[in-house]
């Protein structure tokens, strides 16, 4: 069994770590398994990878998956155009006969050839079609891939810590799921939210935090809303409240008074719904 050289992941100053998630991250690191995180937007899936990298002092490599992306794009690119150009005009220092000079590593490739252990974040894998996942299966399993053009196998020098996020637009394929550890990040409960707020606004007044969080969770209950406000919206909203000199904590939520509603609800339909809702209730 390989010795565990890395220290355990403990969370960072601005990332409030749920003990359950901490355990899951550390187990995945120890087992050297990719960790698949699902959950509604704004639950800190992407931030987790950054926090891991920061806390363990590792570099972070982010692969932002796009809908038309192919697996090979994430591994390497063979720059045929530059080679053609060099072959025609011959004014570069590259050796046209050596294809290897025209191979560029993609994000996964970079993570593999890196001289030290890195954190590899594959963000929103569900955006690409299922072929993408299937093609990555073996790569992540074996931690190696083959550059077909020059028939060279790239093997990870250090197995990266792989974090994969998904917004669950599509279900991921079973074989892929089989090779990952899985966690679903639920929306934080009010207690957790207090800690998160404390981490972002260390000197916030307790009263303001209390009533803001209370109002925030009320606003999440507004019916028929397409996109509920998430943590990100709450933090921005608090920022707005703190910047407003005329704002008084006591009045928040009284008589349906919720300023800067547009920060919480970003779709016009949702905003209407929220306004309607507020006009119907007296005190939140």
């Amino acid at each position, binding site marked *: *069994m390989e010795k565990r050289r890395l220290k355990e992941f403990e969370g960072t100053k601005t990332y409030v770590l*749920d*003990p*359950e998630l901490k*355990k*899951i991250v*550390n*187990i*995945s690191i*120890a*087992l050297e*398994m990719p*960790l*698949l995180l*699902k959950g509604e937007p704004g639950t800190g899936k992407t931030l987790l990878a950054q926090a891991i990298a920061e806390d363990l002092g590792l570099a972070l490599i982010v692969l932002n998956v796009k809908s038309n992306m192919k697996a090979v794009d994430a591994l390497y690119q*063979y720059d*045929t*155009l530059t080679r*053609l150009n060099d072959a025609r005009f011959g004014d570069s220092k590259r050796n046209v006969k050596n294809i290897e000079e025209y191979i560029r590593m993609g994000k996964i490739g970079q993570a593999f050839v890196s001289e030290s252990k890195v954190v590899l974040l594959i963000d929103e894998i569900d955006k690409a079609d299922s072929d993408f996942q299937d093609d990555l299966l073996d790569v992540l*399993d074996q931690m190696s891939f083959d550059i077909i053009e020059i028939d060279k196998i790239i093997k990870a020098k250090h197995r990266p810590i792989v974090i994969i996020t998904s917004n*669950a*637009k*599509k*279900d991921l394929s*079973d074989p892929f*799921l*089989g090779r*990952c*550890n*899985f*966690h*679903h990040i*639920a929306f934080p*409960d009010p*207690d*957790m939210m207090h800690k998160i707020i404390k981490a972002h606004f260390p000197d916030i007044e307790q009263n303001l935090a209390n009533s803001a969080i209370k109002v925030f969770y009320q606003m999440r209950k507004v*019916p*028929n809303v397409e996109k509920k406000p998430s943590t990100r919206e709450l933090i921005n909203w608090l920022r707005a409240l703190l910047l407003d000199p005329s704002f008084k904590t006591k009045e928040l939520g009284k008589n349906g008074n919720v300023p800067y509603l547009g920060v919480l609800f970003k779709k016009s339909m949702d905003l209407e719904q929220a306004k309607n809702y507020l006009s119907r209730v007296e005190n939140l």
Partner: protein
Amino acid sequence: MFVPFFYQLRNVGIPITPTAFLRLQKALNLGLVNSLEDFYITARTILIKSERYFDLYDKIFAQYFLGVELKSPEEKELEELVRSLLEEWLKDPKQLADFLGIDPEQLKKYSPDELIKYFLEKLKEQTERHDGGDSWIGTAGTSPVGHSGIHPGGMRVGGSSRNKSAIKVALERRWKDYAMDGPLDTSSISEALKRLRHLTPSGPKDQLNIRETIYQTVKNAGEIEIVFSPRLKDKLKVILMMDNGGWSMDPYIELCRTLFKYANDNFKQVKTYYFHNCIYDYVYEDPQRRAKPRKTLDFVREEPDTRLIIVGDASMAPYELTHDQGCIEYGEYQTKSGLHWLKFLSQTFPHSAWLNPKLKEEWKYTAGSYTIARIREIFPMFDLTLEGLEQAVNHLIKK
């Protein structure tokens, strides 16, 4: 370790592979699991691959660790595990060998029977080692009670709400909303929508992709390489017929309307009609079922590959379905029985499905069981749950 737990999870329908189970054993061996809480989290993250099963997992976990004492794995159960190991082995020998820490080359020499014996011994060895060991659960392997201060009743330890005993956490059933059983409601509507979005066909690969062709050709040193992409295919037309007669249907009507309204972009056209209990000579475009009748016979003019989705509880008095004058709506003109018209519709639209808000388990025992059974002979019926919707979509998408 925990072989019965593994089987209990499998028995309730959570898809867990032996590989994942072995991975859990590996995690236990690494000394990462030091308490029942740890075990709860570790086992879930390794074994369970979808939040839909988290609730079920919680239930089983609570039942398993609260209820019965843990038994050490019986010979027979071990054998079963070994058998599934063998299946896994055939699929991917190397992976399994890695897990057990054995040499795949050496194992190739064994016959299947010998292999089973070998696995069995290997597993027993593991079990013994765990039972005797002091690492993580020790003799607590046969009873988690009393380990590191966890009260069997799941009393909370410490002040913070997060620091609960695993059983307590499990009993809370935080993941209930994500479970797949239980009828749809507004909270699961976005999940339902995702399933409905699968209802888009993809065409054959017969359209020349010029961009990709040029790229591949250049890559191929000028040798022409032609690339085809899937043809854009017409989106589906959907006809939705909903029973809005009884109060029992009310919550689901609004739900289905919203569902299909939001999914509208994915379809070429969605037409909605209403009926009461059963379909006879007319269906109605208005929910009051008065102003805009449409002859059921007219549907023969619709394109036959239109998808017909009927939403209704299919529960009524038998004569409403079978009798020529069975309609209970006063003043509605009727020439043929409901059964006749349903058959007519199912013949007109080969791709059809009936969504029933009554749960599948109830179908045989509910008041309308007779009519449900008769209608099921005509339409494939699915219950209006996430799972049912998924199956219905899979059925409807078939060519």
